[in-house]
Every structure is written in C-alpha cells, then in structure tokens.
C-alpha cells in the first residue's frame, strides 16, 4: 500500500451499489473486511463463516464449526488466520487456507458478541454478554484466558484493539479503554447502552454509538465530546458504526434500512443511503478506499463511489 494519492476532489462516499452477495447462510450477523480490504467475512446465522471476494462476488471458503450462530469475526494482520465468536459461547481460531479450526476457546458464560485480534494476532479479545472481555492466547495451548477484563457491569457489545489499547463498549452505558502501556483504565460514561465503538484511524478519537440513536465522537485522551451525530434510528438492535477511510465521515447503520453518513467535523448529515427495507445490521468500511459493505437480512451489499469503474480486483 503506497501512500494514497492526494485527490483534488473531496472524498467521495460509496453510494453506487456494485454487488449484492446472497450469502445463503441465514441472517448475516456481521460483515467484516480483512486487513487490506480485498476480502470480506460474513458471519451467518446458520453457524457458518464465509470468506468472499466482495468485488467479484465470489465465495472463497466456508468455515463451519460453530455450534450456534456466528456473531462476529476478524482476520489477522497476515491474513493467515481468522477468529470468530458466536452464540455457542466459544471463540474459534481458524486457519484461513485449510478452513480448519485451530483452537476453540471456551470460557465465556454467554454468547460472544465481538472478537478482535491484537495487532500481531497473538491474542484474541472477545467480548461477551457475560460482561467480560477475555484475552485468549493464540500462542500457547492454555485453555484459560490470559486475562479477563470483567469491569463491565453488563454485557460487552463491542471491542476494538489498537497496538496498546483495548476499547470496549458495554451495555452498562460506559466505554472503557484499557491502556496497557499506561496500566490504566479509562471509563467514559455515555449513559445509554453502547452498541458499537471504534477508534478513529488516526487513533485520537473514539466513536461511540448508543441506543439513544446517537453517535458520539469522544476525544480519546480526555473523554470530551467532539461531535454528536443524530438522525438515524438505533433503539433496539446492536448496529455497527465506523469512520470512513480517511476519517472524513462517520458512518452508521440504521434500523430504518439506511446507512447514514455524517461529515465528521461539521456533524451535518451528508448522505442517507437507502439499502433496503429491513434493518442494516452490520457494515464494514474498506481500510483505504471508499468502499462500503452493508449487511441486510441474508445478503451483503457492496457499495463504491459513483466514479468507480468496475475493474478486475485481485483474486
């Protein structure tokens, strides 16, 4: 990945539907890009995890081995392994190429809402409704987690990992950031149950979406509110949010079948992209390009900017 060319035009939002993948795996609980954005993972309600090339719409592999629906997945930095967690309370480490289960970590008392690799894919962090985050060691054969972060008073809905931090949103209305380097825990009270958190790509801010149909952009260091984004509907379901590839826009799912784009600085609604009749339950933003994946029902949609010409992507 070279440095992105400075574009003369403003950032474009993905609004052209490029592809619709009918995943055929029940409800698509989550859709996730891999590390370089060439592939995506879909977590199905039928206990399977599928690997796709979203631009071409080809199914590459199906990973089955979960005992219940898969709720979240993540790929490692080297694309060699995947992790996933699901309703069977297990966190599974997969080998990408062979499709085999490498490890199965059991220990959560409830279904696993979210999984995440650390930067070197040596630890899997999983957040569960049992209000704990467990850090599983991929290197050793130890069945117990390395550490259990059980500070949350309610289920953990979202976990994100940076090189030295763990960001966790919980249903108790708090965003907790564990700083391993400082050895400190920062707990920000938001009030409403958190559905999704994420770091901004520059690592300065955290984006928090909560069940009061509001997204908040908080300063990571001080916890101050930098921006508030409303207009979408999120009152019941665990929906995803994220930032666009260059931190220019805030993107969120909505329960009214749209994806909302806000300008990050101004907070103004930039685009309400209608996806379909149901609830947009998950989305993923390409790490470098204006490319968006949305999941609605049993299908995944791939969106690009208007000017995008379909080309033969890799793989």
């Amino acid at each position: 990945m070279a440095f992105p060319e400075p574009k003369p035009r403003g950032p474009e939002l993905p609004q052209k539907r490029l592809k619709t993948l009918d995943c055929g795996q029940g409800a698509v609980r989550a859709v996730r890009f891999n590390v370089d954005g060439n592939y995506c993972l879909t977590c199905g309600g039928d206990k399977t995890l599928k690997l796709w090339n979203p631009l071409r719409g080809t199914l590459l592999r199906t990973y089955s081995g979960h005992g219940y629906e898969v709720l979240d997945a993540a790929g490692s930095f080297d694309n060699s392994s995947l992790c996933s967690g699901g309703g069977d309370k297990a966190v599974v480490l997969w080998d990408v190429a062979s499709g085999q289960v490498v490890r199965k970590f059991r220990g959560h008392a409830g279904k696993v809402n979210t999984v995440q690799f650390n930067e070197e894919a040596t630890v899997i962090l999983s957040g569960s409704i049992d209000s704990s985050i467990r850090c599983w060691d991929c290197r050793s054969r130890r069945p117990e987690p390395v550490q259990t972060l059980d500070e949350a008073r309610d289920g953990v809905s979202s976990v994100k990992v940076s090189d030295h931090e763990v960001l966790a949103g919980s249903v108790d209305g708090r965003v907790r950031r564990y700083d391993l380097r400082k050895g400190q825990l920062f707990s920000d009270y938001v009030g409403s149950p958190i559905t999704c958190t994420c770091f901004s790509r520059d690592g300065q801010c955290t984006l928090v979406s909560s069940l009061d149909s509001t997204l908040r952009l908080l300063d990571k260091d001080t916890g101050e509110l930098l921006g508030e984004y409303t207009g979408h509907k999120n009152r019941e379901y665990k929906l995803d949010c994220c930032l666009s590839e260059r931190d220019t826009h805030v993107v969120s799912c909505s329960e009214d079948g749209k994806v909302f784009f806000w300008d990050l600085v101004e907070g103004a609604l930039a685009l309400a992209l209608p996806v379909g009749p149901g609830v947009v339950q998950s989305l993923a933003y390409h790490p470098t390009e204006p490319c968006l994946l949305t999941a609605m029902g049993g299908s995944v949609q791939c969106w690009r900017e208007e000017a995008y010409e379909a080309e033969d992507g890799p793989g």
Partner: protein
Amino acid sequence: MAAQDSDSDEDLVSYGTGLEPLEEGERPKKPIPLQDQTVRDEKGRYKRFHGAFSGGFSAGYFNTVGSKEGWTPSSFVSSRQNRADRSVLGPEDFMDEEDLSEFGIAPKAIVTTDDFASKTKDRIREKARQLAAATAPIPGATLLDDLITPAKLSVGFELLRKMGWKEGQGIGPRVKRRPRRQKPDPGLKVYGCALPPGGSEGSEDEDDDYLPENVTFAPKDVTPVDFTPKDNVHGLAYKGLDPRQALFGTSGEHFNLFGEGPEGASNLLGDIGVNKGRKLGISGQAFGVGALEEEDDDIYATETLSKYDTVLKDEEPGDGLYGWTAPRQYKSQKESEKDLRYVGKILDGFSLASKPLSSKKIYPPPELPRDYRPVHYFRPVVAASSENSHLLQVLSESAGKPMHDPGTHSRHQLNASKRGELLGETPIKGSATSVLEFLSQKDKERIKEMKQATDLKAAQVKARSLAQHASGSRAQPLPADVGHCSWHVALSGGTATTRASSFKPFAKDPEKQKRYEEFLVNMKRGRKDAVEQCLDPSMTEWERGRERDEFSRAALLYVSSHSTLSSRFTHAKEEDDSDQVEVPRDQENDVSDKQSAVKMKMFGTLTRDTFEWHPDKLLCKRFNVPDPYPDSTLVGLPRVKRDKYSVFNFLTLQETASLPPAQGSSEKVPQPRAPDKSRKPSRWDTSKQEKKEDSISEFLSLARSKVGPPKQESSPSVKKEEEHVTESLSDEMVNKEVDSQPEGEGSRPSMDLFKAIFASSSDEKSSSSEDEQGDSEDDQAGVREADFKSSQETDLVETSSAAHDSKLPPQDPAPSFPIQKMQIDQREEFGPRLPPVFCPNARQKLETPQKEKHKKNKEKHKAKKEHRRRKEKKKKHRKHKHKGKQKNKKSEKSSSSESTDSSDSQSDDEGTADLSPQELLRRLKRLPLRRQ
C-alpha cells in the same frame, strides 16, 4: 647458521649454504643448462623420469620389465623332488633394488614406523595435544603415549636442529634482547578490556638493562593454536572429569576454570609421582567404605562452588605469589592498576575527570554505650491511679523518663482507638477491640465503678501483704499466697468481669463453676481470702488446696489466653446477616452526576473515571508493551473482596426479567403494563422503560409490598441510578426471598435464572421455538404469546410467503416479523438484540435438513409442556385477547387476500385459548421449522 652476521644487520636472515667465494681472476662458472642436468643411478646409468613413484625415476632394466637376459620364464622344475623348496613369490620378487633402498617404496632399513612412533619429542605437537587433552572428555588421555616413548623425529625437526635450534626455543632469528613490551599507542583504539600491565614481566624488563650487548637470545616459543575441530556434543569449553581429581583425589586444589595453561598440563606425570601414596582406584559414595578401607573422609569430597572463581580476574603469575599473602610488590602493583588511565578515544567536549569518582561514604553504625547489655527487660506496668501515683513516679524516674502529666498518655500507652480519637477518626463500627464495647452503656458504668473499687482494694491488699512479708510473720505460709498476690495484681488491671462471664473453665461441673465465679467476684473485690471464702467447706483440705490452685491458675490462664486469642483473630468483615457488600476499591460512582453531565453534554472529566489497571504480564508481552507495573503481581483492578454475590452481580438482569410473572402471582401491585406484552423487559428497552415503570422499581415495590405496607413507586427519575444499584438490590432480594420463602414458589428466583447459569450450550443449540417454550417457566406467558403469534404467522408464511414483503411495513420490523422472536434466544436477551432477518428463500432452503432433529426435540418436551400449559392457561387467555386485538389492527392494513389469512389466524388465535395441548402440538409440528 642463521644470523651469523648479526652485527652487520640484525634483521637479515640467511638460510642455506653460501657459495664459495670466487678466486681472483677466475671466471664464474657457467651454469649447467637444463638439458644437461641429468640424474644417473649408482651404476652410472641415466635415470629417466617416469613418474611420481620412487622419486620419479626408474625402473626395470633400461625401462623394460625384463632383465639383461630378457624376460625369461623360470624354467620348469619338477615338483616331485623339491616340493618344499617351492617358494611363494612375494611382491619383492618383482621389485627393483632401488625400491628396496632407503628412499624406495619399500625400504629395507629398520626405522620406526608412524604406527608406533610417539610424538613425545615433538614438543610443539605435544603442546597442542595437551591443550586438546585438557578440553577433551577425559583429560590426560595421552598419558599412555607418554609412557611408551619411541623417538622419531621428523625431517623438519632434524633440519631445524641442524640449524641450531634447540627444543624449547622459538623459531626465527636470534634477537639481541627481548622486545620491549608494547606501550599502548595513544592513537590506537583499544576495544574491550585494556591489557593489564603485566605484573610478573615487569621485573624481567628491568633485568634486561643489565644484559651485555653481544648476547643474543632465541625468540620465545609460541604455543601453537590447536585447531582441532569440535566434533563432540559437549558444550563449549566443556572440561571432562579430570583424572587427577577423580583418581588421585587431590581435591584441595583450587580450580582455575579460566586459565589452565600449558604449564598446568606439563606436570601431568609429575602429579602421579607425588601422590601421597594413596591407593589408586575409584572410591566414592556409591561403593561405600570397604572393610579394608580405613578412612572414609573423602567420600563426600565433592567439588563445591567455593572452589571456583566467582570473579573474572587475571591469571595468576604461576609462582603462587598472588592474593593477600603475596609479597608486597605484587600488591602494590595491583594497586597501581587503579591509576590506569582511560585508553579509548575521548569524545569531543568531554575530558577525563581529574578526580576519581567519590565512592559512597559508608557510615559506621552508632557506637553502643559501654554498659549496654543486649537484654531487654520489661518494666512493671502500674496502672495510673491516685493510689499508686507515687509508685508510678518512682518507676518512671528510675527508667529515666520524665513524669508525664497524668492527663496525657504517652504515645505507647495509647491504644489504637485512642489514637484514632486523637486523630479525629470516627471509630470503626463493628470492629470493637474488646468485649467491653459490646456492652451497653449501663453495664459499662457498672464495670467502671467496680473496677475502681477493685483497684483501690488491690492496692490495700498489696500493701497489707507487703507489710506481712516485711514483718516476717509466717501466719499464712500458704504457697498460694504469693501467687495469689501476683495474679491478683494481674487481674486487677483489666477486664475481669468480662472474663468471668465469657470463660467457663469448669462448665462441666456446674457447682465448681459457680464457686469459680464466686471466687472471681471476690477476688475482684479485692478480698485476699477470696479462695477460702468460696471453697466448699465440706471438702477435704487436700481438695481445697487443689481447687485453690486450679482457680488461681485458671484465672491467670484465661487472662493470657484471652489476650493471645484476641490478638490472633479479627472480627469478621462481613456479617452474614448484613446486607452490605464490599465493592471494588475504585468504583465507578456518581452515576447521577454523570447523567446530568451527559444531559448537558459536558463530556470529559465529569464523565470519566480513571483507574489503575494492571494488565497481565503475558498480555503485555503479547502486545509488545512494557509492563506498566513490573513489580506488582496484581492483575486487573485493585479491589477488595466482592465475590460474595458475584453471580448475582451479573445476573441482575435475570432477576429483573423474572419479575413480571412474580408480580402476576402476587397480584398486590397494580400492573401498569400496557401493550407489548410479548417481550420480556430488558435493560435494552430503555425507551419503553422510560415511558412506563422501570422493572427495577417494580421490583422495589414488590419487595416493599412483601415486607410492609405497599408504598408508592419511586419516581421515574431514579431509574438510571437504580440500574446500577441493582447489584445491591439483588442481594437484598435474595435475602428477602429467603424470608418470604413460604409465600410460594412465585417468589423464588425463576427457573430461568438457574438455567441461564447452569444450562450447557447444548441446550441452546437445539433452539427451536419449542425449546424456548419448554425452558422458560415463569416467562411462559410472554413466550407463549410469541409462540402463538409465530404459529399464526407461520401459517401465513405457508400460504403467502411471497406476499410477506409487501404486507408488512418495513419501518417497524420488531412487531412485524415475529419470526425474529424465535430467532432470538429469549433467555440470553441481555444486550442489544440482533436485528431481525427476513429472507424467506434462503431460509427455507436451509431449514429442511434439520427437521428431523427438531421433531425429536418436540417429542421430548411434550409432557413437560402439557403440564405447564394447563397451569398457565388462565393467564394466557387474558393476554391473548389483548394480543388478538393488536393483531386485528395490523391485519386490517393488509390487503384483502391476506386479510382472509389473518382473519383465519385471528380465529386461530382466539381459538388457541381453548385449544387442547395436543392440537397445539399438532400445529406446531406443521410449522415449517425455523432455526433458532
């Protein structure tokens, strides 16, 4: 021959035989041209070069295989006569005589062959071998070689000798004097350790000055480097068992791991000779001490660490003059090492310090006074009172302390609580330091009075007894008297009352116990004849004496045991009946403050809590982050105990979730729930909860209604806080529920709770709607409704699955897709729910293979369900009517064709209330099965 003309040029080296000087007038000989340089043999024949064998020249008769006579076969000889003479031809028969000469391929002269030749005389190789032997697994393995010493000197050896070389010298031109030791070149960078100024060579340097000019020396011999490749699997620098150690037991020797030089190995043979006559052989622990062995001292003589060098230091000079016993000059030379200057290049802008770094000053310990005796003796403690104030003063004066004002205690006389008072601390509740503090105020005052009286009397008694002793009267020669006095004084100090009441040493014998208590009371009052008074007059003298002893001993014993016991134990931190739960040290508190801050959008310091958090060491390692707390073993938040109710800490939602049915059963609290009965209340329904009652406040009211008269509900503004109070609430509830157990099973925590805790995941896997129905007991009403809804809905799906999309308003998925209710595991509805999914095609494709399994499941649950259904029928009925109404509204919106369906379902719906379980089952089975 070498360096003969050393005076002219000492650096020139000449080898070989010089040409004879030419005579006067003689022309120099022409060199023989190459073609004339011939080689002839001893017979004058030319030798031609043939090859590499036997010097290259040769062979046969004028280069033929034949002889002068030509090649003639040996004539036939009859073997009958001289059979024995027939000789077997060897290789020699076919060889030339040159081959058998000194330089032939098979010389006939007697020489030592290499097989038997020892290299002992080859000192250079010997040294190398000794070096190798020192590092070999068995050092000194060349011993045998040394014993058999056939001398064979190589040609080079002899050549060198002829050139004047002697053994032990180095090779090279003779030099006038030893080269001066190199001074460190200031321009030269020296890396690593600077070379030590050789202590032993310094003296030799000085000797050089007295050497005469014309004496030359051979250069010093060089120890060859042993280039033996390492072909074993021992570790680097592994030194095997030294046979000198193992066999001859010279264990007193100090090992020098770092420098066992060639001189150490050179006396290999010498050591054996000077062995102190000990028997050779293996002796050791494993072989025990034989009957003939008279000493066993060395059995345990093993190598100890103290024999090894613990510091890296220079090699010893070898003469033993080393260390603190060395002569003065060695030491002084060592001292001069300190002045060694820094040799390396000094960076720009830096200069060497002129003064050495001042070493840390070590202060000597304080000197003890001359009359100090390291024995501590305890001064008698005399309670301060008006009577013995004089005594106290005397005591304190003798101790060298100024008399304190009786009002202010010295620091050491204060106890913890008094210190706390002085510091203005509030006394810790529940951790009374003595039994006294458990007594009521009235009792305390009484005790105080009694104590004062006791003190007074005790002083009198003491004075009296002292007077008695002084007068020397033996009126009361009882040995118990002195003891009596002593324990009397001891007891009078403190808490005799409580002791008497709390300790019953003679509980087995009530009579005796009574007497003992009486004795204690008497004694407390200061009566000297306390024992005599309380003793049973009917007892014999011996018995009395024994009891007297026992009582006094018991009184003393229980004083001490009381104090020791109380020092060992602390009060329980948590009483079982208290409803306080200890919480983590840093609690995320002030939710209300934060809430208002959030409302005002004042995020930042107001909404942020920062805690010290200890990541696991391994986690830090995996994250490539240095451990922020390298010294702590703590992991996570520093916390105090809170495990007691931990299960309920994170099950609070379950508690609240199980409430509505309980409420329904108790019927005392009005039910304010309006529509949307189908879903369990969860924390996620904040929007709904805000409109209506919080489930927790409902719980509160429920709890109150059970304890006392029902109070009014807490205001809705408390909801949020209560969310966070649920933890303690749940504990409260547990307690309450224990109390209210007889009220019926409605007040027990729901079966759900236990299931959620203990059910295995396999239960959840079989997650048809059936299962959920079967699992939940108290939530039956809610779930049931969903069931029925689903049944009608699935009827719809069957008939008009295609029309589904258009029929239902997409904006409101929750009520319009009841299928989704099936998908969500009701028991696990903790967090934000997963969005509904409606993809009929994919679904039906997928579901077919699982039908069989679910059918089985259904069968299993049949009986259970029937039972429950009957129980719940009434409730169900009521709710269903309500639901049916809702349904009606919805279906009115839809098109005509669907309205027939929905009216069908509506009729179904109304019918279900009276349906038999069998009918229900049948319908359920008809459903196209939905996963989850």
